[in-house]
């Protein structure tokens, strides 16, 4: 996805989640939409909010706060659904707010290991330092990794 050799440029979509800034590669973002009514789907993990209709397509929506184990807050007008493409499947992610689109140099990105080393940090691709801010860069494939997908399908089996 991102080129990490030399000093190349990359564009990030930056959003807020529990007062922290997260960034995803703009290449994988299809669009950003306002929150709309989400249809619940039974027998799915709790971080799957349900499905929405996006111009005739049915797209699953994930609540990122729940996915990351952060406290859930009431929805407000700032909430957005960031629609991303993960391996050909479109998935919507509910975030607190989308703040900006940033152009960063790959020099500004540091590997996550130097900053955080928790077990759950697999979905962190790196930390970008812009002036005095830190932006957590997400590896979308890992945010909804194959393990997670396996958990999803087994969840629907277990419920049976």
């Amino acid at each position, binding site marked *: 996805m991102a080129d990490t050799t030399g000093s190349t440029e990359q564009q990030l979509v930056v959003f807020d989640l529990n007062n922290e800034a997260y960034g995803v590669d703009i290449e994988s973002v299809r669009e950003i939409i306002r929150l709309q*009514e989400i249809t619940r*789907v*039974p027998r799915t993990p709790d971080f799957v909010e349900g499905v929405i*209709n996006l111009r005739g397509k*049915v797209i*699953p929506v994930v609540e990122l706060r729940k996915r990351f184990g952060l406290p859930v807050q009431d929805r407000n007008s700032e909430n957005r659904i960031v629609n991303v493409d993960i391996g050909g499947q479109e998935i919507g992610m509910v975030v607190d707010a989308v703040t900006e689109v940033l152009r960063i140099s790959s020099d500004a990105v540091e590997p996550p290991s130097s900053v955080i080393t928790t077990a759950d940090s697999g979905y962190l691709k790196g930390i970008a330092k812009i002036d005095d801010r830190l932006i957590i860069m997400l590896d979308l494939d890992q945010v909804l990794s194959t393990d997670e997908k396996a958990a999803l399908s087994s969840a629907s089996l277990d419920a049976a």
Partner: protein
Amino acid sequence: MNLDPDITQEDLQVFLDEAEEQLQLLDENIVAIEGRDDSSDLIQEIFRAAHTLKGSSAMLGYQEMTDLGHAMETLLDSVRKGSLAPTTNVVDALLHSLDKLRLLKDALIEPPDKPIDVSDVVAELNAAGGGKSAVPVKTIAVVELKLTDAEQARVTEFLKTQVKAKAVLVRATLTDRCEWGAVRWFQVLGELSEAGQLIASNPTQQQIEEEEAGTSLEAVVVGEIDEEELVRHVRAVADIATAEIEEYRVESDSSGSKASSTAAGAGTKTAQTIRVDVERLDLMMNVIGELVIDRGRISQIGRDLEAKYRDESLVTELSKTSAHIVKAVTELQDRVMEIRMLPIGTVFGGFPRLVRDLAQSLDKKVEFEVKGQDTEIDRTVIERVRDPIVHLLRNAVDHGLEVPEDRRKARKSEKGVLTLSAYHEQGHIVVEVSDDGKGIDPDALRASAVKKGFLKKEAATNLTNQEACELVFLAGNSTAKQTTDVSGRGVGMDIVRSNIEAIGGFVSLETEVGKGTSFKLRLPLTLATVQSLLVQSDGGIFAIPLVYVLETRRVPKDDVHIVNHHEVFNLRGTVLPLVRLTDAVGWESRRSQKTDDEYVVVVRAGETQIGLVVDSVIEPQEIVVKPLGNFIGDVRGVAGASILGDGGVALILDIATMINMARQKGAFSAARSLDAENVADDEPAEAAAAA
């Protein structure tokens, strides 16, 4: 196998498509002529199919197929002329040839390890036909072509209207050693038709078809013709000895003579059909699916606007336009749906053969009747019902119908009757496979289910006969005494059921010991859209495919009883389990807080019924099925999603699975215990699920 080196991949594909069609024709018709003397139309059709195969394979230079086609044709010719009766020998020989033709065709796709030898079946054909050999190409003296007045008039008319056009006379002869004269003349006529409009030829196309062509041919063609090139093309056809061309002059001015409507030669027929890749139709159907969704949305917005701005003329205008769009989209949808429809007979084609071979191998006599082949059904559905039907037919011949001796003892005609019929019923297609055999014995199934550990003895005894018969759908519960390679291993009926349920249909059976068995497959007309009932429950909207819906009704609170923690209600004397939709989809229950009536949708899968409690019933609607996607994957009890007129998403319920889930929870035993007023502590489906 040495093919003509000039054959392109495209030519080959065209040949394969055509060959497949002809083979299917043969498949359907050969079995039907056995022992009949009134089947001249069928024989004519078989003859034509064999002839076409011979011709097109000769063009390809596929000698083995040409030889075989020729031998079949010779045999069929005798049958056609009545000098040979369509005995079992003849039919066998033809069927074996058909098998060989299939091998030959497959060899074109994937070359086999060793060359395919056709001499054995050719010998069998010749023996069946009394040893007659191939008909040689007749030699007739050089022909001369005389145009009729009508044909002359057409030439004149053509020259008048098309400034650059000219009329030419083409003469060609074949070499002496040419074996397939008719084929070569066909190719020549093909070249001529490509260059311009073929007015007439001697021999005519019909004469060529009937093998009455000699070694020379004359034809008149009009059009913008490059004479040199045309001659070159004609000469390029194999076995052509000479080809000449000259300008054709209309003999007399026939502009005054009225054009008679005599059929003029051949080759002028314009194409009435085109071949379209089915994938394109599928893509088109997808787009129309989007339109159908928008159709719903547009009419909803129209209604809302009208309610809000009643007197605004623009709104009225918009409503009118949207009403028209709605109509046009509906029309478009119907038309494309029609294009995708195929007569269900297209899958029935191989069945007479299948039944015949099977009956022969089991020493049974079977009269196989097929009805309603013309019933049209979406091709996506057709693809998925073939295997289940094959299975039902095999089962019927193997287990349903008895051997002649047993039938005699049972005072039935020696010949068993097996009927396959298809018909429309209330917006669905029903395919029925019925036999007049020994029927299914509920006690045998009870015993088998107990023996195999699916059921406890008391539970088996408690089943009604109908329920016991439905045990045939359990995996592994075969009652066949002997396992044959045909069936009896107890796999299959469960697969039949799950395959049919997977496309939103269901299977039911009726049987009577000694009288016979009938399986009914109820199928949706199409898989692209589903007629559904929209209901509301706990704020969410759900779609229930109408195929499962029996009725909707309000049930007074007092009529709902609780047995063993299960809610049940009485529907006209039958006690049915009551399932709350919120429970069924796994959301927290808000049971029985209401004091007034319950809204109940009575649904069924097979013969099993339950009442589904919902908050309200909205309306029936045609919906487009959308998958939930890989990310969410399969959710038990949910068949997919659909987009509603207001842009929201509704989940489509998988009723068959929901009923099974209710079974596993023991809802049916609860209902039955109230019904029969005795307590059954076990359940067939519980056991089935455990197995």
